[in-house]
């Protein structure tokens, strides 16, 4: 039952409680962004604690809960073995509150698999309780602690706990946790000791090139089967690209990487491209938005597109590629080997002059289904060229994204006409 952002309050919780009580088949309940408050959770608990309740997934993000709600949550965790997912981020639960929650986790009745505690005002002191809970909970598969000021000491302690715990952790999110290169050796240890770990997110932490080098040791370990790696805004430079390249060209399990907002620059990107040409590079999705790239690296990217059949999603927006750079990219896109279905070129300094080439790609590349050209000064002339391409029955696109482009009423009319002529092509603005 999805009731996110429905203006619900604590009063509605009495009714919700009844609903839960009378619907033992209810498996999922989403109540994010409703001002339920601690009082609301109190009412809700009556339904949640019903023996016949077999709720599996519960979302209570941003519900104005405080530590006072944690006793209730503890009870629910201890009483309901059916509950496998609990999302309570964006609530000021605090360290004291989550310590109480952890007691619930310790209960042998609790079979929780996914725990989301982002932005809960947790501090370093929470780690001891978390580690104890991890030791007791082999069922735990996903743990998210992003946006809590944990710091290196706590994160190192957590990593040591994770390595010792018997749980087969698949997802670990520690974004914006105050991590520096200091923690990276211990995070690396988790990578090399937990072949179950598929998704690691350490974005928005100043780990720097030194930290990345340490992480790569774990990433390169044969035990590491990582699939998704989120390293956005980590203070990385082109120096990191040497190590990252080795990961890209050797870790066949790696499928999705975000390097958004790191100053990789053309030289760094060229190194990554070299690696992406290796047959062992199976990366499907690469986000390099806002990485300080220019037209100079486009030849290397184009070269990748002409040999790499695995890459499906390329987000290269917010880089000053310019018309020249994008024209070169399009050459690679048109190559029969290229299987890119989603291309993001927002705010890339593209103008109307490039639109003829882009239009050609749109009617030639049958597998290109999503193209984002937002925030480029395409003007009426450029947009009309793209519209012409959409009219062409050879254009098999599903989404053409044109946000934040300044055009006149004539373009509005054409877009309206296109809604009728090609309803299968969604033009988003």
């Amino acid at each position, binding site marked *: 039952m999805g009731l996110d*952002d429905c203006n619900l309050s604590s009063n509605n919780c009495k009714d919700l409680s009844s609903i839960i009580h009378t619907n033992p088949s209810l498996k999922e309940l989403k109540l994010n*962004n409703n001002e339920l408050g601690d009082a609301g959770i109190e009412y809700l608990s009556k339904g949640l604690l019903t023996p016949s309740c077999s709720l599996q997934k519960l979302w209570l*993000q*941003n519900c104005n809960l405080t530590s006072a709600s944690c006793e209730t949550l503890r009870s629910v965790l201890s009483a309901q073995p059916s509950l496998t997912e609990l999302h309570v981020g*964006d*609530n*000021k639960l605090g360290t004291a509150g989550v310590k109480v929650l952890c007691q619930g986790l310790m209960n042998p009745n609790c079979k929780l698999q996914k725990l989301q505690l982002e*932005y809960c005002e947790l501090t370093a002191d929470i780690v001891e309780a978390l580690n104890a809970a991890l030791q007791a909970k082999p069922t735990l598969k996903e743990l998210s602690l992003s*946006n809590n000021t944990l710091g290196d000491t706590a994160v190192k302690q957590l990593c040591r706990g994770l390595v010792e715990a018997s749980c087969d952790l698949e997802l670990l999110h520690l974004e914006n946790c105050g991590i520096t290169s200091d923690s990276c050796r211990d995070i690396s240890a988790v990578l090399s000791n937990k072949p179950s770990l598929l998704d690691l997110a350490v*974005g*928005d932490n100043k780990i720097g090139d030194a930290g990345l080098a340490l992480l790569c040791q774990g990433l390169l370990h044969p035990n590491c089967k990582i699939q998704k790696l*989120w390293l*956005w*805004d980590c203070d990385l430079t082109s120096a990191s690209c040497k190590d990252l390249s080795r990961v890209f060209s050797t870790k066949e399990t790696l499928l999705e990487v*975000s390097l*958004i907002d790191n100053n990789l620059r053309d030289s760094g990107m060229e190194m990554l491209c070299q690696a992406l040409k290796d047959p062992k590079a199976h990366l499907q999705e690469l986000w390099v*938005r806002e990485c300080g790239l220019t037209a100079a690296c486009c030849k290397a990217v184009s070269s990748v597109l002409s040999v790499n059949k695995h890459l499906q999603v390329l*987000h290269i*927006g*917010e880089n000053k590629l310019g018309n020249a750079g994008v024209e070169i990219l399009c050459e690679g896109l048109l190559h029969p080997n290229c299987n890119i279905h989603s291309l*993001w070129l*927002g*705010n890339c300094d593209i103008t109307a002059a490039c639109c003829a080439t882009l239009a050609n790609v749109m009617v030639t590349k049958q597998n290109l289904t999503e193209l*984002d050209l*937002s*925030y480029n000064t395409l003007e009426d002339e450029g947009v009309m060229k793209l519209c012409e391409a959409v009219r062409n029955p050879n254009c098999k696109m599903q*989404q053409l*994204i044109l*946000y*934040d*482009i*300044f055009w*006149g*009423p004539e373009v*509005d009319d054409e877009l309206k006409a296109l809604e009728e002529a090609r309803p299968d092509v969604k033009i*988003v*603005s």
Partner: protein
Amino acid sequence: YTRFRKDFLRKHVDFPRTQSPNNNQYCDVMMMRRGMSSSGRCKDLNTFVHTDPQNVVQVCRNQPDRAIRTTRQRFPVTVCKLIRRKPSCRYRGTQRNHRVQVGCLRGLPVHLNNTFP
């Protein structure tokens, strides 16, 4: 006027600023409420301006069609950048105090071009 309403106000003005526990959550909620974030289709970058829309309308008054104008005053803004799409779209929000640059049509702002410190 429709574009002012449909495009500009909906996407770029939130005044008074909607309450939220933190900037990231602000973006997650607002991008969804304003129709720019739903089932995997999420706008990559968006700026919300937190001032009376009249303060922005003024800069377009009596301006030629297609004019691009910047406010003299700085206003609180929140810049939302997409960080992940799966399992749901999540944003990173940053607050700034910026001058606002808009594109004008028939004396009304219809397009947010940029913001400057």
